């Protein structure tokens, strides 16, 4: 199998997946395709239906309508087969506090049919991989949250899954821990070729690690794609916004800016200009300004940043609802 072939095969697919709790629609006709070996981020505010979606993928709750497929297996019917191949790291993962980390892993390994030497070897390798060898023989009741999370990853890897679903993996972990975690997640996808689906409301962390992202608001996926694609989906509104600050800031500059092509309007906040235009101005701006002897202190396209995208989509969703 060539790499291009494996990249295109969708391993997770949902078709019109819907979950209703009485009046409330938690997930609304979700159509999602996640390809093999990619890290997919499910982004959205709390209560957007991210966890419900992951639960349906694992067959832990039944969809009201629609279908979720993993490796062409129906997630509601073939739950055992699905669970053999999918690892799930729940939000705020817990362990049996009276057992050590190693014993917890051993229990999971045995549940997944491992035994004897193979089991012990796997445990040692995984503990090393998540950097938990030293704490392995301590009771998990004494672990910090970051340690629990790392042990949780080892726990997920015990069954050697080819799909890993993580629910809010970065919640409550310090920045250093998050950095390590992100590196580990990237590694899982690149080195082992596993598919990772992670849900989060923390944008920046996801931005760094995900190949593609889906933005999820009130049960609907309102945008999906790579970071650039999401940015483009915003620009399709026809407006491009650039933040600019330049030295020296004089009258000549303002007239220069006004005379540029495609400008819709210019706004000035302190010493920053917010320029709205019909196309991406950054190239033209930097060229013109340099020619005129100005020094660009700050030039940034608003909207390419995830936060911007996020806010934008949330505003959009709010308008629709309201």
């Amino acid at each position, binding site marked *: 199998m060539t790499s291009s072939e494996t990249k295109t095969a969708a391993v997770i697919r949902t078709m019109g997946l819907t979950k209703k709790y009485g009046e409330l629609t938690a997930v609304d006709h979700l159509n999602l395709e996640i390809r093999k070996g990619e890290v997919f981020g499910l982004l959205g505010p709390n209560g957007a239906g991210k966890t419900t979606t992951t639960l349906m993928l694992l067959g*832990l709750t039944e969809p009201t309508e629609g279908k979720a497929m993993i490796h062409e297996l129906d997630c509601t019917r073939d739950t055992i087969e699905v669970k053999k191949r999918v690892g799930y790291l729940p939000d705020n993962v817990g362990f049996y506090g009276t057992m050590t980390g190693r014993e917890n892993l051993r229990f999971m390994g045995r549940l997944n049919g491992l035994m004897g030497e193979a089991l012990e070897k796997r445990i040692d390798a995984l503990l090393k991989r998540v950097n938990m060898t030293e704490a392995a023989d301590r009771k998990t009741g004494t672990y910090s949250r970051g340690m629990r999370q790392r042990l949780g990853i080892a726990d997920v890897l015990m069954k050697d899954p080819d799909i890993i679903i993580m629910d809010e993996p970065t919640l409550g972990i310090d920045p250093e821990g998050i950095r390590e975690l992100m590196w580990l997640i990237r590694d899982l996808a690149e080195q082992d070729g596993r598919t990772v689906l992670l849900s989060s409301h923390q944008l920046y962390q996801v931005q760094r690690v995900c190949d593609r992202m889906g933005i999820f608001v009130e049960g609907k996926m309102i945008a999906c794609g790579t970071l650039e694609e999401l940015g483009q989906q915003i620009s399709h509104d026809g407006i491009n916004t650039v933040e600019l600050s330049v030295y020296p800031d004089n009258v000549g500059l303002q007239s220069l800016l006004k005379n540029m092509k495609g400008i819709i309007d210019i706004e000035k906040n302190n010493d920053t200009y917010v320029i709205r235009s019909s196309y991406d101005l950054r190239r033209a701006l930097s060229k013109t300004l340099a020619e005129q002897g100005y020094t660009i202190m700050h030039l940034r396209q608003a909207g390419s940043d995830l936060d911007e995208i996020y806010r934008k989509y949330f505003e959009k969703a709010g308008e629709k609802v309201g």
Partner: protein
Amino acid sequence: MVKKASLNIPGHRNTHVLKVLFEKETAEFINSRRMLLFVVLTALITISGFYAALSGLAEAFSGGNASADFLFLKLFTVSANSIPSYNSLMALMAPFIGIFMGFDAINSERSEGTLNRLVSQPLYRDNIIIGKFLAGLFISAVMVFSSGLLIASVGLISTGLIPTAEEAARLFLYLCFCVIYIGFWLAVAILFSTVCRHAATSALACIAVWLFCAIFISLLAGIIADALYPVNGNDMQSLLNEMKNYSCELNLNRVSPYYLFGEATSTVLNPGVRTINAVTVTQLSGALAGNLTLGQSLLLVWPHLTALAALMLIVFTISYVSFMRQEIRSR
């Protein structure tokens, strides 16, 4: 490799998973602090039961009115002036033991955040509660048998009474009854632990059920029987009602597992108990005084055994159904 291959057959896999879960539950319980409390509780039951038996037996002998039959079994049924017998202690404490082991079976896993990790493993969900139930039953069986056999063996040494085969068989049956009785309360506790979100709520709910079975059913039974078959008049009808009233009250009482257990164990432990229902004088005429054989005693309490087991299964099924339909989110 051979073992690994056998795991691919669904049935084998299932028993393997059940075994792993059972071992984990047992190990977890034995390593927990609760085990210590459990041992203390058991020791208290054993010691006070044994003390009651020894002093009670001595009193009965000095009074000169003890029948010499089945003295060995009296170790379990004789009470001293203020200390209840082992049997009645057991009837009192068995519900607590069952509740104690099961009241947080599912909801503690839920609040620890281990339940959703567990249900995302390739196993059938029912295995989780079956594993918990079997582990609890196993531990209580070990405890009941060791405490019963301890009394038997220390009693053997200190009193010099040697059990006959029938007495040994009756003792064994009695201990089995205890385990099934504990199993019923364990099932009740597991049911509440799946339904209630907090361990404290489920513990309270279990205790409420126990109080209802131990106290309120008998009150209600009396009230209902009196309402259906009044006996306080002076007319002929109330005389006729006497028998019906008693039977009605008895049958209503038998809804309670507490009552069932009491009736069954006193029959098993005392071969002199020839009947458990109301019997008229005419029915008794011509009957020879004597003890029942083991088979006959067993025949007498067979419905009790079936009813207790059925109650246990019903409660377990309800918890099974409610657990299967539950959506398990993170804590």
